[in-house]
């Protein structure tokens, strides 16, 4: 168990920022930490990285308590705070060497480690530049290089792709995916495609509570109890609709569009039924060419909206 949080609670005066959050993260997982703004993501991360102590509850990093064994726990974490605040008056290479030194990288390994992470994060080309003169994308990558420099087993990244352009986002995601087998990663974001792209599991936090903890696959797998299908077929819309409606297992066929002789339908199956093969047979028997027939995966966005909206105005469940 790399991270184990039990009833983690943070109270800022009368405000309950994080409320009895419990979760664990296993070795090698890449966990996406999702939630609306102000849900308690950053506060939770700050407690895990020993920046602020929890009001109550405990968190362990590889068995080390973040409060009583703080320094040892910190040695095992590479943390990139939100927006990667760095020292603008240092050169990239100086900064990374400084960070390597305070993170306890032995002097003889520092040069090598710093060169390695600069290559890995694509900042070797700007190593002599002052951090203050770098673009946001480069600064973000220097922050990531800093998180990696001491080769920690756990990486905690708070919104690592915020403010980057699409190409840079792709690079950062590739990098994070590349880290996965050796390291454990907890990454917070509210960009949902990012989670689908890099994470194996999601933790959704809403109003200070964990609202959901599931693998991305489980979460977005087509809902088995009631499938939703999408069909695009070239043929007369009315006749196709009739053929669909009469097919066994189909509860409802809704014409979405009809243009250029192509009809698009959204089909709801009856509970427990999979009418895909029957539909395909019926279309072919009437020689209506099928352009598309697929089971819709639930989008993470829908799930996120459902989970985070459901709790608004309700008391959090104990």
């Amino acid at each position, binding site marked *: 168990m790399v991270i184990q949080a039990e009833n983690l609670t943070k109270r800022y005066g009368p405000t309950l920022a994080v409320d009895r959050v419990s979760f664990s993260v296993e070795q090698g997982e890449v966990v996406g930490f999702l939630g609306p703004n102000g849900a308690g993501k950053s506060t939770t991360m700050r407690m895990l990285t020993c920046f602020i102590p929890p009001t109550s509850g405990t968190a362990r990093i590889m068995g080390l308590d973040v409060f009583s064994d703080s320094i040892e726990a910190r040695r095992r974490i590479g943390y990139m705070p939100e927006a990667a605040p760095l*020292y603008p008056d240092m050169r990239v290479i100086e900064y990374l060497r400084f960070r390597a030194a305070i993170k306890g990288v032995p002097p003889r390994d520092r040069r090598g480690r710093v060169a390695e992470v600069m290559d890995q994060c694509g900042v070797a080309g700007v190593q002599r530049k002052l951090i203050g003169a770098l673009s946001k994308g480069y600064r973000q990558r220097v922050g990531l290089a800093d998180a990696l420099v001491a080769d920690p087993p756990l990486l905690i990244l708070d919104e690592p792709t915020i403010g980057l352009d699409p190409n840079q986002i792709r690079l950062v995601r590739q990098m994070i995916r590349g880290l996965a087998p050796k390291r454990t990663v907890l990454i917070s974001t509210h960009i949902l495609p990012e989670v689908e792209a890099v994470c194996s599991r999601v933790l959704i936090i809403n109003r200070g509570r964990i609202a959901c903890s599931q693998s991305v696959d489980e979460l977005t797998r087509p809902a088995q109890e009631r499938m939703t299908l999408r069909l695009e077929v070239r043929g007369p819309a009315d006749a196709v609709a009739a053929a669909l409606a009469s097919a066994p297992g189909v509860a409802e066929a809704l014409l979405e569009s009809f243009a250029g002789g192509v009809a698009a339908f959204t089909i709801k199956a009856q509970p427990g039924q999979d009418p895909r093969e029957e539909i395909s047979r019926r279309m072919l028997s009437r020689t209506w060419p099928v352009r598309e027939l697929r089971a819709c995966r639930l989008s993470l966005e829908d799930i996120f909206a459902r989970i985070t909206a459901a709790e608004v105005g309700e008391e959090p469940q104990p």
Partner: protein
Amino acid sequence: MRNLAPLARREIASAFFSPLSYVVAAVFLVLTGAFFPYLADNASSTSDLVDQIWNQPADWAAHQFLSLVQTLLMFAAPLLTIRVLSEEHRSGSIEALLTAPVTDAEVVVAKWAGVYAFFLFMIALTGAHMAFVFHYGSPDAWRVAAHYLGVALLGAFFLAIGVFASALTRNAIVAGGVALLLIMAHSLTGLVDYYFGGRLGQFFKQMAPYSLLAQMEQGMVTLHQGVFFISMTAFWLFMATRALESRKWRASP
């Protein structure tokens, strides 16, 4: 204190890189430089006073000059320390710093060491003025050295107060104001004796940095002064560590 060396190296570099440091040093040197000929002239014309307390005009010139230096410190110290921690709070880099495996105390001592190194550099530049005094007169070198030692100790103390004030807030102006206020309060403790007298007055007189310096100016260097300045420096650095730790229980993120 294992991480102190790399932290202090970075802070020293930062202090020497900061434009603010050089602005403070420039103002300090312009003021001392502008007053220096006046003080030197004055020393050679007020021979009565010179004969009574100081052996010769050069001694008096050196004394007057270093008194000016120590007075200016009251304003230079808050300016030198104004940004050290408040800037980290403002930019958020404090989070990266304190989630590294370093202790709050290491960070505070390193911050202080950085500004103290620059402070010593700034004071060393007044050696140019002193060279004139030594060239045109022959002041008591021991007295001058003792006075410099006093200035160095006073600087350590005032800068520790400045680091404390900077740890309190993300607003550099507030940090500077608080530092100035605390330094003034310490500097004026000698007045308690003047206004109220008695044992309380005596107590505060022993705690007044400028009256301790007055002894050192005359070449009287005692353990008392060293203990006072070093323990006051340690006390304010300790307070700065506590202020930095306040993030742990403050009611705001």
